C-alpha cells in the first residue's frame, strides 16, 4: 500500500491499524459513548443553555425574553454580588492554605507511624464521608456561643469564646473552622506522595549535613509538589463553589434562616441559588454563574502557569 501526497496523517495512521486495533478502537468508542453522551447532555448542553439564558429575563415558568447585556450590567451595580464574592474569596484565601498546611502536617506525622497507619488514615478520612448537610447541622451546635463544644473547650483554657454564628465578624472564621472537617482527602493524598519520596535522597542530604528543615524544604517539598499543586487547584475550586454546609447552617435551617445576619454568610453560590430558585431570576442567576466560571477559569490558569514553574513531575523532561 502506498500513500499519496493528499493523504492526511490521520488517514494514513488509520489505514495502518490492524484489524484487531480497529476493533479495539471501535469498542473503545462504545465504552466511551456513555461518558460522551453524558458530557453533551448533562454538561455541555446545560452550559450553552445557561450562556443563552444569561442574556435573557427568565423566570423558569415563562419563555425567556432576550434582554441583551442587562443581566451583566446588573452584576456591576448589585451590592450583594460584591459582598458575596468578597465572602467567597476571603473564605478561599483562609481555607485553602489552612487545609494544605494542616493536612501536610498530619500526613507527615502519619508517615512516621509504623504501626496502625491504616487505622489513623481511616480515622482522618472518615469525616469526609459525612454528608455535607449533617456537617452543617453539627457545626451549628458545636459553634453555639453558650453551649457549643468549641467555646467550652476555649473556656477550659481561659478564653471567652466569640459568637461564632451571630457576630458578623466571627461568622467567617466559624465557617473556615467547619471547613477543616473535610481535610481527610488531602491528608490521604499527601501521605501517598510522602511515601513515594525516595529514602536515598533524604539519606544523601543527611550525609551532606542538611538539617531537618533543609531536608523538608529541599527534598520533601519538591518531591511532593505535584500533590501540593493538585490539592491547591481542587481545594480552590471547591472553596469558590462552597454551598451545602453553609446553606444548611444559615439558610436552609428553619431556626436560623429568619434570625441571622445573612450578609456575613452569603457565599456567591448561595446568592446565585437564591436568585434562581427563590426569586425566580434564572437569567440573572445564569449571568452570575458565568461570572463565577470565568473567575475560576482565570484563577486556575494563573495557578497552572505558576505550577509549571514550581512543580516537579517524576519522569518529566524539564
Amino acid at each position: 500500500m502506498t500513500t499519496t501526497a493528499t493523504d492526511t496523517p490521520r488517514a494514513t495512521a488509520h489505514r495502518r491499524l490492524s484489524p484487531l486495533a480497529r476493533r479495539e478502537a471501535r469498542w473503545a468508542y462504545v465504552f466511551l459513548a456513555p461518558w460522551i453522551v453524558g458530557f453533551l447532555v448533562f454538561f455541555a448542553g446545560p452550559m450553552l443553555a445557561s450562556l443563552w439564558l444569561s442574556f435573557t429575563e427568565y423566570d423558569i415558568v415563562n419563555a425567556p425574553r432576550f434582554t441583551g447585556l442587562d443581566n451583566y450590567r446588573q452584576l456591576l451595580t448589585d451590592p450583594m454580588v460584591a459582598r458575596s464574592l468578597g465572602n467567597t474569596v476571603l473564605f478561599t484565601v483562609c481555607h485553602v492554605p489552612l487545609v494544605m498546611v494542616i493536612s501536610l502536617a498530619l500526613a507527615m506525622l502519619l508517615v512516621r507511624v509504623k504501626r496502625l497507619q491504616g487505622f489513623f488514615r481511616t480515622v482522618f478520612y472518615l469525616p469526609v464521608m459525612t454528608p455535607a448537610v449533617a456537617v452543617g447541622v453539627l457545626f451549628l451546635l458545636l459553634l453555639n456561643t453558650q453551649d457549643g463544644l468549641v467555646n467550652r473547650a476555649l473556656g477550659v483554657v481561659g478564653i471567652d469564646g466569640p459568637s461564632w454564628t451571630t457576630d458578623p465578624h466571627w461568622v467567617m472564621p466559624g465557617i473556615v473552622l467547619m471547613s477543616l472537617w473535610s481535610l481527610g482527602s488531602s491528608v490521604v493524598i499527601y501521605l501517598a506522595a510522602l511515601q513515594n519520596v525516595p529514602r536515598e535522597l533524604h539519606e544523601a542530604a543527611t550525609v551532606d549535613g542538611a538539617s531537618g528543615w533543609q531536608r523538608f524544604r529541599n527534598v520533601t517539598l519538591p518531591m511532593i509538589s505535584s500533590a501540593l499543586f493538585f490539592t491547591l487547584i481542587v481545594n480552590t475550586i471547591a472553596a469558590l463553589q462552597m454551598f451545602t454546609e453553609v446553606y444548611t447552617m444559615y439558610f436552609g435551617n428553619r431556626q436560623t434562616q429568619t434570625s441571622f445576619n445573612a450578609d456575613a454568610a452569603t457565599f456567591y453560590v448561595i446568592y446565585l441559588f437564591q436568585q434562581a430558585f427563590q426569586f425566580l431570576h434564572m437569567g440573572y442567576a445564569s449571568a452570575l454563574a458565568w461570572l463565577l466560571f470565568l473567575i475560576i477559569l482565570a484563577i486556575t490558569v494563573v495557578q497552572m502557569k505558576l505550577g509549571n514553574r514550581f512543580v516537579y513531575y517524576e519522569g518529566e523532561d524539564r
Partner: protein
Amino acid sequence: MRRRAAVGVAVLVLTLAGCGGVGSVGGGSGGGAGTGGLTTMGFGLPDEIARTRVDLFKREHPEVKLDIVEGSFDEQQFLSAVASGNPPDLVYLDRKLVGTYAKRGSILPMTDCVRDQGIDLDQYRPAAREQVTLDGTLYGIPEFYSVRVVYLNEALLRQAGMTAADVDLSDWQGLVDLNAKLATVSDGKLTRIGIDPKIPEFLPMWARANGAQLLSADGRSANLSDPKVVEALQTGLRLIQDQGGWGKFKSFRDTFDFFGAKSPLSQNQIAVWPMEDWFLNVAAKNTPDAELVVKPFVDRQGRPLTLASGSAWVIPKGAKNPAAACTFAKTMTATATWVAAAKARVEARKSEGSPFTGLYTGNADADRQIFAEVYQPSGNKRFDDAVQTILAVQQSAFSIPASPAGAEFDKVWTDAVNRVLSGQADPVTALTRAQDEATAVLSRASK
C-alpha cells in the same frame, strides 16, 4: 453487536427515566374528577391529622391512584418539575409564596376548581383567603390557620412577685422594666430570657400593634421606613440588648429543646414570649404540668391582635389531573374531613394521657363544629383557658397579603432586622435601605 448496543441504549434510557421528577408517577392525562393518577408534593403523613384525611379521600375516591411524595416543599424541585412540563398535580406550600408563583403563572387560578366542585369559599377564614388571592383571583385552598399568642411561665412570674395579669404587652415602656425583672444575666451570661420579642419573625405583628403594616393590602407597596415600624423594631431591639445582646440571646435560645420534654417552659429558661398556637399542642403533650398561661398579643391600645399564617393547596401549571387535584384539595379542607381528623386526634391524645388542645384550621365552619361537638375541656384549667384564648384571638387576625414578590420582600425586611440585631446598622438606616430595596423588587415583580 447490534443487539448488545440496543440493550445498552435501553439500559441508559431506563436509567434516565428512573431519574424522573416528582410528577413522573401516575397522572392520568386529562382525567375527570376522581379518576386517574394524582401526585402531590410538599405534603407528608406525620400524624393522625394528615393520615385520617388522606384515608378519607382514598375511601371516597378509590378509583384515584394517589401518590403522596412525602417531604417539605422544595422550591427547586417544584420549579424544575414545572419547567420540564412534568409537575405534580397538587402542591402544598406556605401561603406567603402563593403570590409570587401566581404572578409568574406557575400555579393555576382556582376559579374553575371552586365553581366545578361547588366549594363554599365563605367557609374559609378571610385572613387565609387574602393570602391566596392576588389581584382578586383565588390561587389556593387554605389549610391550617396558625395564629400567635403570648405564652407566660407563671412560675417565673411568681418568683418575680408578679402574676400573669401584670404582664401588659400594650405598655411598651413597661416591657423594659418587666424584662429587667424577669431576665437573668449573670457574669455576662444569659441564663433566663425575660421577654423574647421574636424578631425578626414577628416584626409584622409588633408593627401592626403600633398601627403600621409592612406591606400594602394589594401587596405592591412597601412601608418599611414608617416611623411606627421603626419604633416597633427599636422596642424589640431594646428588649434583646438588655439581655446581653443578640449574640448571647440567640445562642442561648438555640440551645432550647422546644419540642421535647426539656422544653424552655419546663426548664424555666424563658418567662414571656409570643409564639404560634401549635406550641400549645407541644406543651400539652410534653409538659402538661407546666404552669403555662396564654394571653392574646395586643396592640398599644390593649386590643387583641394576631398574625395569621398557614399552608395552602395549589395546582401547578401543567398539572395532568387538575380535576382530581381539586377534588383532593376540597376533601382535605372540608368540614367533615377536619372533624374526622379532630376525632382521631382526640383518640390519640386519650391513649397518650394528654389533653386535646384543639385543631385550628382555615375552615371556620370546621372549627366551629370541632369545638362544639368534638372538643371537651380536659380539666386542666391552664390548657382549657389557653384554647379559649386562641379561639378568641382568631377574630382579630391579620395576614401579610399576597404579593408578586413575596419571597424577596420577606428577605428584604428580615435582612434589615438582622443587620440591626447584629449591630451593623441602626433601625432607621436599616429600614430606610430596606424600603428602597423592597420598592425596587416590588416594582420589578409588578411589571
